[in-house]
């Protein structure tokens, strides 16, 4: 009798959450898809059927081409930079040096800060002004005699977005470090010792023993950072505002929807982003839950 009561009670307990997630994620996605197939432009909703024309127009739209190029550059610089830096820092901190905890906390603290704060500060660090108005990092480089490092940061044509990725690396590399450090700590010490007894030097141990064992961590980092790159928005807004050379899909979506009131096209950008993220994330969730079930 009691068992029966609890059988319904457990469903009752989780149903508000499940219903909320169902509506706010899945119903809303369906709704967005419908908007993306409509002619809706203007303040009042208009669901007139427009087939896939919004998508077709986007793929012909030069601004969307800039968005794709920027996303690719940003993703490449951000993901590779964060993984390399994070891995190096994790290996260095894995050596049992004094002060490890201090350095670890220091490398990770930007994660606690919002992209907006990061952006506002980096906007001044990466001030591209020249001549007597030189400031920020360019001023620091000049004072240190490193003139060759002076550059125009995010105002550089085509590659400007890489400067934004630099600020993103500052914010997120500590996270990859934490992932790698957790991974390194889970590798049994005997493995490393055995390799050393066999005559492997420190470099070879990391290259041939640790790195292959860490490939699940690298995969996680690639996917998590990669899907973040597709969504990048706040950081660019805070560093540079809405500028065409630094445009990305998330900014285009926001502008075309809420400034341009072209809801149909805005929804189409949202769905394109969703599909790109789903390609990365769905296999990842399946893989993670499967490994979990095996353990």
């Amino acid at each position: 009798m009691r068992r029966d009561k609890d059988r319904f009670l457990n469903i009752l307990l989780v149903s508000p959450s499940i219903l909320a997630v169902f509506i706010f994620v899945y119903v809303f996605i369906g709704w967005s898809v419908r908007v993306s197939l409509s002619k809706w432009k203007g303040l009042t909703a208009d669901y007139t059927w427009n087939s896939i024309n919004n998508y077709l127009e986007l793929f012909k739209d030069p601004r969307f081409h800039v968005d794709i190029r920027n996303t690719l550059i940003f993703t490449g610089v951000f993901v590779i930079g964060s993984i390399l830096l994070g891995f190096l820092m994790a290996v260095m901190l894995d050596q049992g040096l004094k002060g490890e905890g201090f350095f670890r906390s220091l490398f990770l603290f930007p994660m606690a800060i919002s992209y907006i704060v990061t952006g506002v500060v980096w906007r001044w660090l990466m001030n591209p002004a020249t001549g007597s108005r030189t400031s920020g990092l360019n001023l620091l480089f000049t004072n240190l005699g490193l003139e060759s490092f002076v550059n125009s940061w995010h105002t550089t044509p085509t590659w400007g977005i890489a400067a934004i990725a630099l600020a993103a690396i500052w914010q997120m590399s500590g996270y990859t470090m934490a992932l790698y450090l957790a991974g390194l700590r889970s590798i049994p010490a005997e493995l490393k010792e055995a390799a050393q007894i066999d005559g492997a030097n420190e470099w070879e141990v990391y290259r041939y023993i640790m790195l292959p064992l860490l490939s699940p961590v690298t995969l996680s980092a690639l996917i998590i950072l990669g899907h973040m790159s597709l969504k990048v928005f706040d950081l660019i807004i805070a560093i540079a505002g809405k500028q065409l050379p630094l445009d990305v899909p998330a900014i285009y979506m926001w502008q075309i929807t809420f400034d341009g009131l072209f809801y149909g096209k805005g929804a189409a950008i949202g769905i394109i982003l969703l599909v790109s993220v789903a390609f990365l994330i769905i296999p990842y969730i399946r893989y993670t839950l499967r490994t979990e079930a095996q353990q």
Partner: protein
Amino acid sequence: MISKLRIGKYWLYIPLVFMAIFYLLPMYVILVTGFKGFDEIDLKTMWDLPRGIAFDNYIEAWKNLAPSLKNSFLMVIPATLISSALGSLNGFVLAKWKFRGADVIFPFILFGMFIPYQSIMIPLVQFMNKIGMTGLPGLALAHIIYGIPITTLTFRNYYASLPQELLEAAKIDGADMLGIYRYILLPISMPSFVVVLIWQFTSAWNDFLFAVILTGNEQWPITVALNNMAGSQIIAWNVQMAGSLLAALPTLLVYIFLGRYFLRGLLAGSLKG
């Protein structure tokens, strides 16, 4: 051999210190600029230490940002508490008191934490307007619901790690489901609550996207207010620096005092908890 290894290790402090400088550079600029008097402010001397300690910038930034700091707290507190409580209940049911189909539903909940919010933004705004949940309550509701996947995941993983015998023993003693949750699991859930509360607090406090689409002028939380302050031509960069510190301080303090739990939340966010 051993001494050679030792030297090799001490050498590592050089790159570590360089990295530390890289991470501290923005904080250095925020701090030295914040404490300069208005008369010392010049972009050309932005790397110089302040001559004394002045609070001009903080007073000016506070005048601009105090209302939005209050808005942030008003929104973040219910968002954090409710989302965490729901996560704990869900985690309990999905780990220890499963119903048929629970394992099928879980990945669908999980996917919710990775979606780009651009894909639900238009319906979200429409829906919130329709049900009259605008401004801060609407923003809090969005954070509660989109927080459910990660809070559920964290608690589910924790409860799943507890031995089934714990529950069986209580069942034999006649405890029902709610009794087991209330008297057996809840008392040992504190570490997970801390992880989840910190995570939710940080992500709701730092959020910009939901805030910018769901709130207007009077109800802006700190991120939107700070961004608008930085975008305006009227407010000087030194005041923006002071404002950045005000905006970052609550989450930074949480990080400094509860960093260990913060880290566990981070790892959970990549499904590696």
